[in-house]
C-alpha cells in the first residue's frame, strides 16, 4: 500500500475542525442536495461538469445563430441582410464564442465529469475552486454577450489585431467587453487547469500509474499544462490592450515607438497552443470510444500518449505560421514553416493508430462510434490542408482566404465538435442513466456530416478562388456565387441536425422516465468510470479501486481461459460497484465561489462605465475571498447526508481496496 500513502484522496477521515460560528455571519452553510440551490452551491465535480455542458451548449446555440447570420449574409453576392458594422461584430463574436465559450468549456465539462472517475478519485483536488472556475466562465461569457445590448459587440475579429482594435478605430465599448470578458473566462480556465493538473498528478487511485491512465485523461492533462502556460500570455496581451483602450497606454502604437507585431506575436503564442487545447480533448474522447466499439485495446498506447505530448510541446514552436504574410523575414518564415510541417507527424501517428485500433476489430456503429469515425475522417482532411499551410510561400496565397476558414472548421468542427458529440452519446448513459436515442442520434450524425461537408467543403474552393475571409459581402463575377450558396444551405442542414440532437435529449429523457437506469456498463467499456453505477453516485466510488493494469475495468471482466484464449470471465454486474454506500465524507457545498465570481463582471462594467460598479464588484470579491478563507472545507454540522464515516462497512470483495479508505490518513481538500 505504499502507493496510496503518497496519494491523498479528496475526503476527510481524520479529525475534523470544529467552528462554532457561521463564517462572516452572512450565509448558513448550504446543505441542499436537490433543487436549484444544490446547483448554485455545489462543489461536486459531476454537477459542475453538467453545468459546464449545459452552459457551453447554450453558448453553442448563440454562436450557431451567429454562424447562420454570417451564412445568410454571404448566401448571395452584394447581400444586405446585415450591415457591414453588424457583420463584423457577428463574425467576431462567432469566433470568440465558439472558441472560448463553447469548445473549451464543453471539453471542460467532460474533463470535470470524467477525469476524477477515470483516475478513481472522489472529486477534483480543489472542489470549491472548481465551482469558482465554472461561475467565472459563465459570468464572463454572459458579460461578454451583454455587449450586444450595450452599444455593440467587439468588431475586431477574435484575433483583435492592433491598431484596428484601438479606441481610434473601434470606438464602441465592444472591445472593452472582449478584453474584460476574456480576462474573466481566462481566470476560469487558469484556475481549472491548475486544479485538474493537481488532480491528475496527486489523486490517482492506488496503482493508477501515469502510463495506465486512459488516453482521455492523458490528453486532458496535456491540455491543462498547455493552458497553464498559454493563458498568462493572452492575459498579458489582453491587459496591454485594455490599458491602451481605457488608459491611453501605448503598447502597440508605432508612433509611440511600439510595434503592432507585438500583439500578433503575443496573440499567436497563446493562439496556436489554444488550437491544441481545443482539439486534444476530442482526440482523447475518440481514443476512448473507438476501442470500446472495436472491442480491442487502443493500438499503440504509448505512441498515442507521447504523440499527444509531442503535439502539446511542438505546439509552442509554430505560432508564427499565422504571420507568414506579416513581414517577419525569410529566416523566421523558414523556421516556423519547418516546425509547422513536422507537427503533422505526431498528428498523423494518432490518425493511423486509430485506424489500426479499428483494424481487425469487430466494429459496431453506434452513434458515438459514428461520430468518432467522423472525427478521424474529417480531421484527416483538416490536417492535410493544414500541411499545405505550412508551406509558407503557398500560405501567402492561402492565408486570410476561405481556404483557411475551411481548414480550421474541418479541424475544430469536424474534429473537436464531432469528438465532443461522440462524447455526449457515449457518456450520456453514465451521466443520466439512460441512452440517447440511436435512431435520432444516427439521423443527427448523418445530417451533421452532410451539412458540415456542404458548408465547409466548398470553402476550400472559395479560398483557392481567392475569396477573402472576414468580408461582409463579395462582388458578383468573382466566381464565388455558387459555392457560397451551397455553403449556406449546408449551414442550415447543420442547424437542423442540432435541433435533432436537442429533440433526442428531450425524447430520450421522457422515454426513460419511470424506467430503471441502465446498468453501470452499457457499452462493455474499459475504464473505471464504467465500474460504478449510472448515474454516478455523489461519492463516485464506494471503495477506491486498486488498479493493476491499463483498461483496469476491462481486465476485471475479461481474462484468458484454460486454452489461453481471451474470454469474458465476469459479467459487468459481478465486477461493478453497487449503489448505496454510506459513510463517505465529501466536501461540503459553499456559497462563496459564486459570490466571489459574481463580483468580477461588476468590476468589468465598472472599468467601462463607472468605478462605482467596480467598487461594488470589489466588495463582492473581497467578501467572497474572506468568506471562503474562513469557511472550513467541511461542514461538521451537516455531514453531507450520509451516516458518520465510522459506520462505514466495506462490502466489496476486494479486501485490499476495501481497507483502503479507512486505513490511509487522507488530507482534506483545501480548495
Amino acid at each position, binding site marked *: 500500500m505504499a502507493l496510496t500513502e503518497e496519494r491523498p484522496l479528496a475526503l476527510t477521515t481524520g479529525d475534523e475542525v470544529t467552528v462554532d460560528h457561521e463564517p462572516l455571519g452572512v450565509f448558513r452553510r448550504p446543505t441542499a442536495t436537490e433543487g436549484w440551490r444544490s446547483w448554485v452551491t455545489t462543489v461536486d465535480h459531476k454537477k459542475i461538469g453538467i453545468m459546464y455542458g449545459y452552459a457551453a451548449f447554450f453558448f453553442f446555440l448563440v454562436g450557431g445563430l451567429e454562424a447562420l447570420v454570417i451564412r445568410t449574409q454571404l448566401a448571395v453576392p452584394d447581400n444586405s441582410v446585415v*450591415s*457591414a458594422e453588424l457583420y*463584423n461584430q457577428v463574425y467576431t463574436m462567432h469566433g470568440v464564442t465558439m472558441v472560448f465559450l463553447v469548445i473549451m468549456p464543453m471539453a471542460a465539462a467532460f474533463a470535470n465529469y470524467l477525469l476524477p472517475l477515470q483516475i478513481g478519485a472522489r472529486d477534483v483536488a480543489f472542489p470549491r475552486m472548481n465551482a469558482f472556475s465554472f461561475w467565472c466562465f459563465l459570468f464572463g461569457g454572459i458579460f461578454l454577450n451583454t455587449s450586444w445590448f450595450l452599444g455593440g459587440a467587439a468588431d*475586431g475579429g477574435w484575433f483583435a489585431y492592433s*491598431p*484596428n482594435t484601438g479606441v481610434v*478605430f473601434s470606438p464602441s465599448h465592444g472591445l472593452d467587453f472582449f478584453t474584460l470578458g476574456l480576462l474573466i473566462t481566462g481566470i476560469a480556465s487558469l484556475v481549472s487547469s491548475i486544479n485538474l493538473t493537481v488532480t491528475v498528478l496527486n489523486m490517482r487511485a492506488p496503482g493508477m500509474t501515469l502510463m495506465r491512465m486512459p488516453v482521455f485523461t492523458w490528453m486532458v492533462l496535456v491540455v491543462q499544462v498547455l493552458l497553464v502556460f498559454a493563458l498568462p500570455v493572452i492575459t498579458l496581451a489582453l491587459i496591454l490592450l485594455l490599458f491602451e483602450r481605457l488608459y491611453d497606454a501605448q503598447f502597440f502604437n*508605432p508612433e509611440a515607438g511600439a*510595434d503592432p507585431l507585438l500583439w500578433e506575436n503575443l496573440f499567436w503564442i497563446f493562439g496556436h497552443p489554444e488550437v491544441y487545447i481545443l482539439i486534444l480533448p476530442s482526440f482523447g474522447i475518440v481514443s476512448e470510444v473507438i476501442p470500446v466499439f472495436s*472491442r480491442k*485495446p487502443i*493500438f499503440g*498506447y504509448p505512441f498515442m500518449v507521447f504523440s499527444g505530448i509531442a503535439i502539446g510541446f511542438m505546439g509552442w514552436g509554430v505560432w508564427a505560421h499565422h504571420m507568414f504574410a*506579416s*513581414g517577419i*523575414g*525569410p529566416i523566421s518564415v*523558414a523556421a516556423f*514553416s*519547418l516546425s509547422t510541417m513536422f507537427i*503533422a*507527424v*505526431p498528428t*498523423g501517428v494518432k490518425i*493511423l493508430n486509430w*485506424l*489500426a485500433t*479499428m*483494424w481487425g476489430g*469487430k*466494429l*459496431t*456503429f453506434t452513434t458515438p462510434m459514428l461520430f468518432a*469515425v467522423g472525427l478521424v*475522417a474529417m480531421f*484527416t482532411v483538416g490536417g*492535410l490542408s493544414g500541411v499545405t499551410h505550412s*508551406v509558407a*510561400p*503557398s*500560405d*501567402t*496565397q492561402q*492565408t*486570410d482566404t476561405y481556404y483557411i476558414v475551411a481548414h480550421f472548421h474541418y479541424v475544430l468542427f469536424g474534429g473537436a465538435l464531432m469528438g465532443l458529440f461522440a462524447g455526449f452519446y457515449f457518456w450520456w448513459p453514465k451521466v443520466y442513466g439512460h441512452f440517447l436515442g440511436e*435512431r435520432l442520434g444516427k439521423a443527427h450524425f448523418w445530417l451533421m456530416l452532410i451539412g458540415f*461537408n456542404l458548408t465547409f*467543403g*466548398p470553402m476550400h*474552393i472559395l479560398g483557392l*478562388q*481567392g*475569396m*477573402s*475571409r472576414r468580408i*461582409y459581402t463579395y462582388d458578383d*463575377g468573382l*466566381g464565388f456565387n455558387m459555392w457560397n450558396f451551397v455553403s449556406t444551405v449546408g449551414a442550415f442542414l447543420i442547424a437542423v441536425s442540432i435541433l435533432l440532437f436537442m429533440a433526442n435529449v428531450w425524447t430520450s429523457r421522457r422515454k426513460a422516465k419511470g424506467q430503471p437506469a441502465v446498468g453501470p456498463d452499457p457499452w462493455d467499456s474499459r475504464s473505471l468510470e464504467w465500474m460504478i453505477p449510472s448515474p454516478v453516485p455523489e461519492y463516485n466510488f464506494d471503495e477506491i479501486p486498486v488498479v493493476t493494469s491499463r483498461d483496469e475495468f476491462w481486465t476485471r471482466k475479461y481474462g484468458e481461459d484454460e486454452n489461453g484464449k*481471451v*474470454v469474458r470471465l465476469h459479467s459487468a454486474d459481478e465486477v461493478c460497484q453497487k449503489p448505496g454506500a454510506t459513510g463517505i465524507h465529501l466536501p461540503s457545498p459553499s456559497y462563496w465561489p459564486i459570490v466571489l465570481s459574481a463580483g468580477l463582471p461588476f468590476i468589468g462594467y465598472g472599468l467601462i462605465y463607472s468605478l462605482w460598479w467596480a467598487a461594488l464588484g470589489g466588495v463582492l470579491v473581497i467578501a467572497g475571498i474572506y468568506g471562503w478563507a474562513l469557511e472550513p472545507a467541511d461542514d461538521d454540522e451537516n455531514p453531507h447526508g450520509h451516516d458518520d464515516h465510522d459506520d462505514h462497512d466495506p462490502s466489496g470483495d476486494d479486501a485490499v481496496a476495501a481497507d483502503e479508505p479507512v486505513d490511509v490518513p487522507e488530507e482534506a481538500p483545501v480548495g
Partner: protein
Amino acid sequence: MPAPRRRLPSLVTGALLLGVTLLATGCAADAPLDIFQGDGSESQIINDLQIPVFGVAVIIGILVLAAIVFIVVKFRAKPDDDDLPPQTHGALGLELGWTLLPALILAFVAVGTVVTIFDLADAPDDALEVDVYGQQWWWGFEYDVDQDGTADIVTANEMVIPAGEPVVVNIRSRDVIHSFWIPALNGKKDAVPGRTHHLTIQADDPGIYRGQCTEFCGLSHARMQMRVVALERADYDAWIENQQRDAETPTDADAAAGLEIFQGQCVTCHQIDGVDEVEFAAQVSGAAPNLTHLMTRSTFAGGIFELYDEANEGDPYDLGGIPYNDLPEQGTFNRNQLEAWLRNPPAEKPMAPDPTEFSQYGRGMPNLNLTEQQIDLLVAYLETLK
C-alpha cells in the same frame, strides 16, 4: 444496440468523390482572384511548389479516407458474433514506420519550401519601385520617377507597372494593418504601420490583375480592392508622362463652377495637383485619394466601382477591349454611379466618417449634403481630370 446500417460506405465514397471533384474544379477560369493563376514570375515560383504539394496532400487524403472506408466495411461486427477479436496492443515497427514515413515525405516538401522562401525574398537591385500605402479603405500608390525622394505621381486603387519587368513594391500603412494581395502575381504581404515591407511582382503579360485587401482592417475591409495594370513599356511610359502633369484649369463654365465647389469642400481631404489648397485644409489634405488624374483610372471609391461602363464587360484581364490609356477618350463614363457616390458616400460603401472633426485618421468620406446641381457641376469638373 441496434443493428448497424449499410449506408455508411456509399456515403463516405460519395463524400470522397465530391471532394475530389471540388478540388479539381478549384481553378475556375472565371475567378480573377484564383490563387493558381500564375501570371507572374513569383506566382509561378509559388505554383511550382504548391501544385505538387496540393497533389500529394490530395493523394494522401484519398488513401486515408479509402482506408477508413475499407476498415469500416471489412471489420464490421457480424450479428451474434460475441467472440473477442485478437487483442493487439500495438506493433512497434509499424508505428515507427508510420512516424518516419510522413516525416520523410515532409522532409522533401521542407527542402522545396525553404529554397522557395529564399528565392522569393530575393529582390532585384535595379527594379522599378512603387510605394504602396494602405489606409481605410483604399490603396494609394506613389511613384518617385526622378528618384529625388519625393513622390512625383500619387494615385489610388490602380498600380500601373510595365509588363515583363520586375517591380519592387514597398508596402506601408497609414493607419491599421492591411494586406496587399494580387493573387495572379504573388502572395500577400501585410502593410503594418511603422514598418515597410517589400514584395517583388512581375506581370509576364499586359493585363489587369485584381486584388483585395486581405487583412481585416475594419468596417469596409470587404470594400478595399485594388488592381495592378500591366502595360507594354511604351504605354507605361506614356502613362508616367501623363500622370506627372498638373490638372488644367477648366475652361467650361460648369466645370469651372465645379472647381469652386471642389475648393470649398473636397479639397479638405482630396488633392488635385495644380489646384491651390485652401489654408485650413492643409493638415488633412491628402487623407483621401489624389484626384489629379481621376478619369485615367478604371475604378473609384477604393476600387469597388467601375468608372467606365465597358470596363464591366469582357474578361477580367481586359477593359472591354479599350486600352487602359484610352479610357478617358473611348470609355463610356459611368456617370450614375459617380453621382450616387457624391450624393451619399456612406450609403454606397460602409464608412465611419466623423463629420465634426477632421482627423488624420480618415475613416471614409462623409455625406456632404450636396445639392443635385452641385453634384452636376462637380461631376462636370471631375470629368476634366484626365
